C-alpha cells in the first residue's frame, strides 16, 4: 500500500466534514483511494469504567448518554440485560411503551440521517425538509417522555411514565402527518434521477462482504442480508407485532437510503399496532437495589444496527463490568472496504451512509510509531510491562526495593 506514487491525506480528527472528532488517513493515487486507515479513540470518554463506579439506577442515565441519537437504544439494552440477571418479569404495558419509544426514536434517527445524507451530497433542501418533519416526532417525544433527547423513560423493571389516551391520540395524529411526508420522500428517492445517479454504485458492499465483515443494521439490509434483532431475537413487544424487515439488493448508498426511508413506514405501522394493542396494567415492578451475582448479554436493534451490552454483576449495588458494542464499531470495517478503489469525493457520503456515531464506538489502546504508518494494538498487561521497562531505562528501578521489602517480610 505504501509506495512513492501514493499521496496520503489526513482527514480529521478535526475536520469540517466530520461532526465528531475521528482520524482518517487516506492513501491516494490521483483521485483514487488506495486504502483508508481509520483511527478511533479521539472521542473516548471512559463510560464503561465510569459505569462500574455508579449504582444501577445512576448507570441508566450514564449509559443513555453513550449516544445522543440512539439514547433509548442503549438504556433499553442495558436495562434488559440487568433485568435478565435479576430475573425480573417486566409488565406487558411497560414492554409496549418501550417499543413505542424505540420506534419513535428510529423515526427521528432515520429522518436525521436522511437530512445529513442530503447535506453530504449537496442536496440541502432535503436537509431542511426532513429536519422540519423531524420536529414533529421530537415534539411527540417531549410530550410523552418529558425530554426531547435522552428521554429517561427506562427504569429497571419497567418504564417511568405512562402513555395516556390523549397522548396516544397525539402520537397517532403525528404518525398520519409523517406517513404522508415519508411517502413523498420515497417518491423523491425512487424517481429523482439526480439522487439515483449520485448514490448508485457508491460505497458498494456485496452480500458476501457483509457476511465477511459482519456489518449490521441498514448497512447489512441494503445488501440483501435479512439481519434484524427485532425479528431474529425478539425483545420488548416485537414478538407480538407484525412488520416486515426491509431489504434491498442495490448494495450501495442508494440501497441504504431506500431501506431507511421504507423502514420509516414500518415504524409507523409498529407504533400504530402497539398503541392499539397497548395492554392495561402496571408500568413497572419494584426492582431490588442490589442485583444478584451473574452475567448476561443483551441485544437490541438500534436505528444504526445491532447494539450489544454485556453486564456482569457481583451482588452489590454497582455492576462489576459493563461492556458496550455500539453498531458503528461493527460497521466501521465495512467503510474501509467500501472506500477502496473509489474516488475521494465519495468519501463523505460513504462514511455518512453507515450513520456513524463515533462517540458510541470509541475504545482501544493503540500505539502509532512516529514517522511510519505501523501501529499496533496492545493489551493492558503488555502496556504495563512496557511502561516498567521504559522507566527502568530512565533509571527508575523498583526491583531492588521489591527484593528488600520481600526480605523484610520474610524475616
Amino acid at each position, binding site marked *: 500500500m505504501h509506495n512513492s506514487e501514493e499521496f496520503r491525506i489526513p482527514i480529521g480528527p478535526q475536520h469540517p466534514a466530520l461532526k465528531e472528532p475521528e482520524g482518517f488517513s487516506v492513501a491516494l493515487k490521483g483521485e483514487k483511494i488506495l486504502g483508508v486507515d481509520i483511527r478511533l479513540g479521539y472521542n473516548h470518554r471512559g463510560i464503561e469504567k465510569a459505569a462500574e463506579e455508579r449504582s444501577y439506577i445512576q448507570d441508566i*442515565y450514564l449509559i443513555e448518554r453513550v449516544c445522543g441519537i440512539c439514547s433509548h437504544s442503549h438504556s433499553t439494552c442495558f436495562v434488559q440485560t440487568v433485568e435478565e440477571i435479576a430475573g425480573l418479569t417486566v409488565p406487558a404495558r411497560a414492554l409496549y411503551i418501550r417499543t413505542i419509544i424505540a420506534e419513535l426514536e428510529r423515526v427521528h434517527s432515520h429522518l436525521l440521517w436522511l437530512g445529513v445524507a442530503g447535506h453530504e451530497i449537496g442536496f440541502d433542501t432535503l436537509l431542511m425538509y426532513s429536519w422540519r418533519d423531524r420536529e414533529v416526532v421530537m415534539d411527540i417525544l417531549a*410530550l410523552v417522555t418529558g425530554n426531547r433527547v435522552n428521554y429517561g423513560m427506562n427504569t429497571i423493571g419497567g418504564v417511568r411514565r405512562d402513555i395516556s389516551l390523549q397522548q396516544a391520540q397525539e402520537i397517532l395524529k403525528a404518525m398520519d402527518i409523517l406517513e404522508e411526508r415519508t411517502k413523498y420522500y420515497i417518491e423523491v428517492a425512487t424517481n429523482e434521477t439526480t439522487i439515483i445517479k449520485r448514490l448508485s454504485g457508491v460505497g458498494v458492499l456485496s452480500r458476501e462482504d457483509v457476511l465477511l465483515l459482519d456489518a449490521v443494521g441498514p448497512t447489512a439490509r441494503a445488501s440483501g442480508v435479512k439481519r434484524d434483532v427485532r425479528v431474529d431475537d425478539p425483545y420488548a413487544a416485537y414478538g407480538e407485532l407484525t412488520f416486515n424487515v426491509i431489504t434491498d439488493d442495490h448494495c450501495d448508498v442508494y440501497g441504504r437510503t431506500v431501506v431507511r426511508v421504507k423502514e420509516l413506514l414500518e415504524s409507523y405501522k409498529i407504533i400504530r399496532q402497539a398503541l392499539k394493542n397497548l395492554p392495561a396494567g402496571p408500568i413497572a415492578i419494584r426492582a431490588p437495589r442490589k442485583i444478584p451475582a451473574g452475567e448476561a448479554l443483551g441485544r437490541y436493534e438500534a436505528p444504526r444496527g445491532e447494539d450489544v451490552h454485556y453486564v456482569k454483576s457481583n451482588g452489590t449495588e454497582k455492576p462489576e463490568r459493563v461492556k458496550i458494542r455500539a453498531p458503528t464499531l461493527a460497521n466501521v470495517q465495512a467503510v474501509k472496504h467500501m472506500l477502496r478503489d473509489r474516488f475521494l469525493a465519495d468519501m463523505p457520503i460513504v462514511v455518512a451512509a453507515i450513520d456513524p456515531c463515533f462517540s458510541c464506538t470509541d475504545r482501544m489502546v493503540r500505539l502509532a510509531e512516529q514517522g511510519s504508518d505501523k501501529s499496533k494494538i496492545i493489551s493492558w498487561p503488555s502496556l504495563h510491562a512496557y511502561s516498567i521497562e521504559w522507566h527502568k531505562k530512565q533509571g527508575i528501578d523498583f526491583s531492588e526495593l521489591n527484593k528488600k521489602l520481600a526480605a523484610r517480610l520474610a524475616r
Partner: protein
Amino acid sequence: MLREVLGSIFKKPATNLYPAQKLEMPDKFRGKLKFYPEKCIGCKMCMRDCPTNAITINKIAENKFEAVFDLSRCIYCAQCVDSCPKKALEPTKDVELAQLDKNKLRVVFSYKEKSR
C-alpha cells in the same frame, strides 16, 4: 418536486421566532426542579440516586431541611422525583436556565417557617 418548491415560496418560515415567540413546554416536562421543604423527611434518597451529584439536602434544624441544586450539574432526568418517597420534589416547565454567572446556577430552597 417543482410543485413543492413553488408552494414553499409563499409559506411562512417553518422555524419558531424564538425570543419573541415563547415555546410552550408540554405538561410534565422535565425542566428545573422545585423543592417543597415542608414535605422533606431527610432520607436523602434523591442524593443517593442522583447520577451527577447535583442535589444536596442539608439538615438545618430538627425535621427541617433545605435543598441545594447545582443546575450546572443537573441533567434533568428527574430520577430524584421518582426516588422521593414523600413527593417533596417536582419538575417544572422552566427551561430558560442559561446564565452568565456560574453562581446563579446554584439554587437554594431554604426552609421557611410560614410555609408549614
